[in-house]
């Protein structure tokens, strides 16, 4: 999404407390018109509560939600002109598919011919025209959610909220509908706020992702931003797989931060936050950025960081070879090799190898509680 698109939804310093617990703790986000923004986080991270405040089902304890620059907090949900698809199946069980999709127009008292036309078009959009006469109970879960999507789109809202709409579906069906959602977003240009705990889904669908943790937005950015330049260890652990090496900061310069690993080896990584020399840190590196070479082989000039390791296990995954190696300090690391994986395939369990990587691919994070824990 180009940065020139005007802001449609603006969430400002949103706070929501339920008794003693703070569900949303100062969330601020701007959503551009036509953008697909995903709230990504584990359960209890505040993403759904934030979405429900935008919908109007929850009142915030503090902060504001603006649509087109006007606060909507005092506007009832039925007057916000927002579409929404829920996690649970929320079709009206007593109405046919046609009447479910017609519902938003019927309550707006639109003329009958207009309703029929719009329902037909919208059912065609989700490819369910031939199911118009069925009752929701006669549809599969995936079909029900597509009808729910049609019901949320039929009145052409500018904003569509989706609260884990695919969580109840199996993986294959989920991927199918993800493709449909992308297509519909492209065709209609509707602004979508999407909630999920599935990082793959977030990466597949979104223009931007807001990573939620403990009621706060930890980082907002494109999938590539979050993967290549995670703001902290939590984001790094949440998006994709990561290795976290305990490290002590040795020196900081503009380009790189040098850290000492537990075995005394000094390596480097990039960092965004200021780190104090001598402080505890965590070196993050993705499994596919690590390379294994035989100890005797000539060092590759590209790989300026090296650690001796022992091979523990190799798993052939077709498109890649996944290896587990053990560092001198007993930590198990994941290495994923693609391409000429054959070269080292003769190396058996227990082989002494050298693990190397380019310092530009590693990141140094401040040590935070549980920073090495997330692995999803």
């Amino acid at each position, binding site marked *: 999404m180009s940065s020139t698109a005007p802001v449609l939804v603006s969430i400002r310093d949103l706070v929501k407390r339920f008794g003693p617990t703070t569900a949303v703790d100062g969330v601020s986000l701007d959503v551009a018109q036509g953008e697909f923004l995903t709230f990504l986080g584990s359960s209890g991270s505040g993403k759904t509560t934030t979405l429900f405040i935008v919908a109007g089902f929850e009142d915030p304890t503090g902060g504001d939600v603006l649509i087109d620059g006007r606060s909507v907090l005092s506007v009832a*949900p*039925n007057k916000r002109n*927002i579409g929404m698809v829920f996690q649970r199946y929320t079709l*009206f069980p007593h109405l046919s598919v046609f009447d479910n999709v017609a519902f938003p127009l*019927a*309550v707006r008292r639109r003329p009958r011919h207009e309703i029929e036309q719009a329902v037909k078009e919208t059912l065609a959009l989700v490819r369910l025209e031939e199911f118009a006469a069925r009752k929701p109970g006669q549809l599969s879960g995936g079909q029900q959610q597509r009808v729910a999507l049609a019901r949320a789109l039929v009145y052409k809202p500018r904003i569509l909220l989706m609260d884990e709409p695919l969580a109840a579906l199996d993986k294959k069906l989920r991927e199918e509908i993800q493709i449909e959602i992308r297509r519909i977003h492209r065709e209609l240009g509707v602004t979508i706020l999407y909630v999920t705990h599935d990082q793959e889904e977030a990466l597949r669908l979104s223009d931007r992702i807001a990573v939620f943790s403990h009621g706060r937005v930890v980082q907002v950015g494109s999938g590539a931003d979050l993967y290549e330049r995670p703001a902290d260890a939590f984001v790094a652990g949440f998006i994709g797989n990561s290795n976290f090496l305990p490290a002590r900061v040795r020196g900081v310069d503009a380009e790189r931060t040098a850290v000492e690993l537990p075995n005394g080896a000094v390596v480097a990584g990039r960092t965004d936050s200021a780190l104090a020399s001598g402080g505890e840190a965590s070196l993050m590196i993705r499994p596919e950025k690590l390379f294994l070479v035989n100890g005797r082989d000539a060092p590759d000039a590209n790989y300026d960081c090296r650690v001796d390791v022992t091979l523990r296990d190799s798993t052939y995954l077709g498109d890649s070879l996944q290896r587990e190696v053990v560092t001198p300090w007993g930590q198990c690391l994941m290495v994923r090799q693609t391409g000429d994986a054959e070269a080292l395939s003769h190396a058996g369990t227990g082989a002494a190898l050298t693990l190397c990587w380019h310092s530009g691919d590693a990141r140094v994070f401040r040590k935070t509680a549980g920073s090495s824990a997330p692995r999803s």
Partner: protein
Amino acid sequence: MRSTLRRGRAWPLRGFGPALPALVFLFVFMVAPLAVLFLRSVTEPTLGLGNYAELLGDATYGRVLFNTFTVATVVTVVTLALGYPVAWLLVILPSRVARWLFAIILLSMWTNLLARTYGWMVLLQRTGVINRTLMDLGLISEPLPLVNNLAGVTIGMTYIMLPFIILPLHATLSAIDPAIMQAASIAGARPRQIFFRVLLPLSLPGIGAGCLMVFVMALGYYVTPALLGGASTTMLAELIAQQVQSLLNWGLGSAAAFILLTVTLILYAIYVRAIGLGRPQ
């Protein structure tokens, strides 16, 4: 799959063993007496359908039948109108508060029927608490006729029937996912529209079950109409008691009882047809 079906057909009475005592009891003390009652209704004083013809043809008895259905209908409508909001309140209140409300409803149901009915007499009669208070406040100059008429019967019976409509309604309403109402709201429906287009249709099974229960119970009600009603509101149950106890006219009394039973069964059949056996689909 096929083998279980076949076995099911071969042993239609499988699992009936434990229910046998109850079935025997029902047969001896319900089916058999009903059969005797029916025989009396067509044999006393003479063989034939004379009793039924008299009941359905005579103006006085017709009046009683009319009273019975009027009272049952009014009571059912008022009970539904009062009970629906309470059932909904039980669903949306925090569970701690809802438990208290439930306890109050059940407690009223478990209190002795006669005590409650006499309680209403004390409240409703000409010199009763309600009339006295209203007159002291200067709101009325004459006591309102609240007892020995349709108003008295309706008030007393509605109060007694309330739990019987609240409980099935509560069961139905609490099974409706609140997210469905949220979906209706965000789709643009105003609260009124959500009620009439979503909540009400979805609560029809509970409404049906509750109304059937109340209507059928009201049709055969005896104590409350006898105590709070008057001569103009005599109901079928009172007629039956009168015929059997005072006039020893078993034939006519039995026929009246059978008319009541037939109407009840017809209503039940209609309900089952329309809504199913209390299972919302």
